């Protein structure tokens, strides 16, 4: 699992804690990591498939007469524990920084300044929308699960703050360059 999506490692950890179906795992992952990760059902099932192909989880179909119908339950294989430990030990990579906006800046013309500033305004509002979406009650820090939720939300908040400060800087620099031109 080395070098793969960090979500895959977290997903494997959750399956190891308790087997579950896709919807249950998606909910648990969202609760632990917060909405900043923007996990979609498609991503989740793709990761479960990859974990299954790698022999780290196995699935079985469970038949039910209830409103939820048949469900596929994912359980850890005997290799899962070691894979999770290896993932815990592995180094952490840096994510690419604001690639699209950087690319736009690199080829911008003077007349693009208002559009870039408007794009920054939109991005700023998106950051705050994400912040609003991530402000649920944080459980008390009394366990590693509690620490995980707290750190995950703190990470999202600090990341958003860095983005917002970067927007302030970008706005200032673009305005200055546009004034000089």
């Amino acid at each position: 699992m080395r070098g793969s999506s960090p979500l895959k490692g977290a997903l494997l950890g959750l399956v190891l804690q308790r087997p579950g179906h896709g919807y249950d795992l998606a909910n648990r992952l969202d609760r632990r990591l917060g909405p900043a990760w923007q996990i979609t059902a498609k991503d989740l099932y793709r990761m479960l498939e990859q974990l299954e192909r790698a022999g780290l989880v196995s699935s079985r179909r469970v038949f039910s007469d209830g409103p939820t119908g048949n469900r596929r339950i994912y359980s850890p294989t005997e290799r899962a524990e070691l894979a999770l430990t290896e993932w815990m030990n592995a180094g952490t990579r840096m994510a690419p920084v604001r690639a699209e906006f950087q690319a736009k800046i690199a080829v911008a013309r003077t007349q693009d300044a208002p559009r870039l500033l408007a794009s920054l305004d939109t991005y700023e509002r998106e950051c705050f929308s994400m912040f609003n979406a991530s402000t649920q009650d944080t459980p008390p820090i009394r366990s590693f699960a509690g620490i995980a939720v707290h750190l995950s939300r703190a990470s999202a908040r600090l990341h958003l703050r860095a983005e917002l400060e970067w927007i302030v800087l970008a706005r200032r620099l673009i305005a200055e360059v546009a004034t000089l031109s």
Partner: protein
Amino acid sequence: MTLLSLTQVTRRYGDGRREVLVLDRVNLEVDAGDFVGVWGPRRSGKTTLLRVAAGIESPGAGAVCFDGHVLTSMPAGERTRLLRTHGIAHVCGDWRPQLNQPTLDSVAMSLLSDRMSLREARPIAHRALEKVGVGDCADVWTGRLSQGERIRVGLARALVRQPRLLLVDEPAVSPSPVECGELFALLRSLAGRSDLAVLIASQDLEALEGARRIMSISDGILRSMDQAGVVVAFPNQRVSA
């Protein structure tokens, strides 16, 4: 009902050689019982915004109104009398008491100008200290309070005057994340009261959690960030798409 409004408020600082625009045509409205959060990095204009809103500082241009009264055209004495009780309270995260005295008396003294004796003011001060979670500091001398305790005492000093608007400037002062989290929870619970509007300005997003409206300020320009992601048209927004 609009409790506080700032209209086209501009504030400049200058030393004769250079002039810095700290607030640039700022418009802001705070309703009764509202909870507004203002995010901004350091030196973005947050402190000046709150000082102008509290009537502590006069803007160079524009109007500040509180409960229908135009503070900016009011003599200082009249403004102080209007805001003292059931008015605006301003609490600063880095507030330090001027006198080293028992904390209870520090809080009680903010009631003395209401023709109340220290003996009458002390029980009210004690209740306020308990309400903000530092009832056990009543006998501690203010010089011995921790940073986290000091801001709570500052809140108690503000709350005894039963303000209708509480302005909190940078509450994220404690080095302990747990202590900070508890203070933010206290501010959220105060903001949940229907008789009190709260405006918090901070560079720490956690302090603004639970705010009904969020705004951002940078280079003196205040931008409204509504939750639906729709642009709120403020006359001071310079750029349109």
